[in-house]
């Protein structure tokens, strides 16, 4: 038959192709791509699982524990590749923390729940309410996130506000207050729009910080600072990441009514200038569509170098693009601020990167979700192949500009050419409307570029440097002397305070 003949022909042409490739490769080196450094593997899912991943953690014995939108908590043994049910019947669980091989904490819509297998049959039989001391209006948008355990054993959780895309239910939980019922997103029962701390000593849930809208991600940095992400929307010109400290207000106004000693006024009736002066700005603004649409969970690289050169830095997930984002922060004037740069583009990662966790081997597990958003379903694992890519390791503010630190020495001739760098600055408005366009956009000229003697630091003097702007730097093709290419050539620095 013709079919088999053509297959033979196809095979031989393939062999010729590879031979030619082999012969020309020393002359025309393969273009350096991210797949030389990182690879992404998709985890095979059990039949019948709708893998809208709400939470992930590792148990001490190395099993992954993950919770999903339809209320299941499953374990996965990476060695045997076996999935098993651990718990079921939960209400939209969006976070899990492993306590032991038989005990977990899960944040579900109505409560933080301790779930235990006490008879060692592998399936949970005890579901204890750790805290349900917060309100629910029954509005669908009142998602609950966390738990994040601090070094003293306390837990942070975060509570969404409601959406005016739907009303509230005839029966609610908690005291109703109509003061913040107006607006695109509202808070009409206690502590919607707050980050809360569950104090293990007093066993009480304490209000911690206000001003949140959809805080779908909590994490600590290497120094134990708490970070919480949020999404573009009302009072959110673009998606932000906040360094969260006790009693501070982070901009979304609906939650203010639950603040102790807050006057009985509608937050929406206060002048924007007043609200702006009350709020703490984001440590990082993620320019919308430039780098992210909807950031998720921040996670510290605590792998001790098993995941590449980024130890001590934070990664954060992103829903709408097949990427993660890497964060380069610094303390300036007593506040955290810094830059974000893409990570994982081109590794075959899916979209919907909702949850992140490192395993003991330093592989980064990504739980995907597409629920109600753009995204994907499933689980992936990103593995570092052992070689160092050319990446930006730091972006530091200086008196007159910025200094970039690279992972490898860069080619001096290319790197010192000022036309390689294009700086732009803009800001996002703080207002009641949904999102904000880039505002007061202007190019910023580079006065001077210098390269450090070790070839790893490039310093810029800029013609202008203003607080309250994002500095957007796009670079041409920067490389090392041996042809390694800069993997991500766009970086965005949120300048809240000048040096």
């Amino acid at each position, binding site marked *: 038959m013709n079919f088999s003949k053509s297959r033979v022909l196809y095979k031989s042409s393939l062999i010729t192709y590879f031979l030619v490739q082999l012969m020309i490769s020393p002359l025309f080196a393969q273009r350096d791509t991210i797949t030389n450094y990182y690879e992404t593997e998709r985890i095979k899912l059990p039949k019948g699982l709708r893998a809208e991943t709400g939470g992930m953690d590792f148990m001490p014995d190395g099993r992954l524990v993950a919770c999903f939108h339809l209320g299941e908590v499953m374990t996965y043994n990476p060695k045997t590749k076996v999935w098993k049910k651990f718990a079921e019947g939960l*209400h939209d669980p969006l976070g899990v923390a492993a306590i032991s091989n038989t005990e977990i904490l899960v944040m579900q819509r109505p409560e933080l729940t301790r779930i235990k297998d006490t008879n060692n049959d592998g399936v949970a039989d005890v*579901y204890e309410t750790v805290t349900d001391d917060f309100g*629910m209006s029954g509005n669908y948008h009142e998602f609950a996130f966390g738990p994040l355990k601090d070094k003293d054993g306390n837990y942070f959780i975060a509570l969404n506000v409601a959406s005016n895309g739907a009303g509230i239910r005839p029966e609610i939980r908690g005291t109703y207050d109509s003061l913040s019922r107006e607006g695109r997103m509202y808070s009409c029962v206690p502590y919607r729009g707050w980050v809360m701390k569950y104090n293990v000593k007093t066993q009480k849930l304490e209000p911690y910080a206000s001003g949140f809208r959809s805080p779908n991600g909590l994490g600590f940095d290497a120094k134990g600072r708490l970070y919480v992400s949020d999404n573009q929307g009302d009072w959110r010109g673009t998606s932000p990441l906040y360094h969260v400290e006790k009693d501070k207000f982070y901009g979304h106004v609906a939650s203010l009514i639950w603040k102790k000693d807050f006057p009985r006024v509608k937050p929406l009736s206060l002048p924007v200038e007043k609200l702006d002066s009350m709020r703490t700005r984001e440590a990082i603004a993620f320019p919308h569509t430039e780098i992210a649409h909807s950031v998720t969970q921040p996670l510290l690289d605590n792998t001790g170098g098993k995941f590449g050169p980024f130890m001590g830095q934070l990664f954060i997930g992103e829903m709408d693009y097949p990427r993660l984002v890497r964060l380069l922060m610094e303390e300036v004037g007593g506040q955290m601020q810094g830059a974000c740069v893409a990570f994982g583009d081109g590794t075959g990662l899916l979209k919907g990167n909702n949850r992140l966790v490192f395993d003991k081997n330093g592989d980064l597990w990504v739980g995907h979700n597409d629920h109600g958003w753009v995204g994907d379903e499933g689980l992936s694992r990103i593995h570092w192949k052992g070689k160092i890519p050319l990446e930006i390791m730091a972006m530091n503010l200086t008196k007159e500009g910025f200094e970039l630190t690279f992972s490898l020495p860069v080619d001096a001739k290319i790197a010192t050419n000022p036309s390689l760098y294009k700086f732009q600055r803009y800001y996002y408005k703080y207002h009641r409307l949904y999102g904000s366009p880039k505002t007061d956009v202007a190019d910023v000229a580079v006065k001077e570029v210098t390269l450090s003697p070790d070839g790893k630091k490039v310093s810029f003097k800029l013609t202008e440097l203003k607080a309250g702007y994002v500095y957007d730097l796009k670079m041409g093709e920067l490389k090392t002397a041996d042809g390694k290419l800069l993997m991500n050539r766009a970086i965005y620095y949120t300048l809240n305070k000048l040096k």
Partner: protein
Amino acid sequence: MYKVVFRLFVVLFAFRSWAQSDTTITLQAITGLQFDLARFAVKPNQKVKILFKNEDDMAHNLVITQPDKRLPVVETVIKMGDKAQAVNYVPPMPEVLVASKILVPNTTETITFTAPATEGVYPYVCTYPGHGYVMYGAMYVTTRPLPLLATDPNIPPSRQTLERILSSPHPFPLEYPLLYRTFMPECSPAAIAVALSASHAYCFDAGKCYLRYAWRGGFVDNTDHWKGNGNALGKIQGTIYFKDNVTYPLRVGKADKLPEVDFKGYTLSNRLPTFRYAIDGVEVRETLKALPNDEGVSRTFVFSKPTTQTVYLVTQHTDGITYKSSVGKWQNGTLTLPKGTTKCVVTMQAPPAAQGAHHGH
């Protein structure tokens, strides 16, 4: 022109005489040569839309026949031999009321028709050779309640315990008892739906700490709640036979004082939940079980310590339930549990009435 006017007349007449609306029924061919619904009811002359889904891994069709004509139709198909395939295994005979095509796995066909004017039991069946002897159900054309499922001769004997079989939406089979925390109607947002079996369930309010209502005939359909943004409520499948219309049934110390409640979670024993909560600081464990033949539920209340105050269970004697208790005295629908009580079993009896003729669609 004449035709149009005549049709309009018929429609108006139908509306006036039956005051009815269209109905949509989702019917699935599922694993084990069966339909997920063992029977369903429509009204005479009602416009019926059937969403027929093949969720099995082999081909099936759906044929509705005249009363008592299931086997004649099934046997005619077998006699047709090779020729049957070309007509989707639907013989051209007046005994066939309406039919789908042969559906390969994971496909859907919508069938629209007007229900017969004559009340009766119209069988539905898969006529794929060999299937029709076991794979069938009953379409009741009636305005009256259906007969008891357990003795319904028009459905397969294996289905006389279960009107609807749910396919598992999870990576594990459905097992009963089964519990879902979800949004439920007439409950606080912290609701727990529990199926004691596939056809007997209740709703426990984890916000307010009490049994809200119980129903028979199925469990809860979370399809709409799980898709989309989660705003939709779970849909009750079946008929509610008990609803607690008392503000809060348990009282401590005084029969007319509402207690402070605190939900503490639940434990599972062979999948059966025992709820833990406190009323005015009195710790309670409550377990609900089905009475024999699903004639209601028993509620076992266990107090962590012998009670030091009188505890009351307030019921409404117009709720159609016959209450009995292992401990205490009843007066005007209120049960008084003496100090020192550690355990009390309350049975709530509600004999199954003939089941309602409509489903919770």
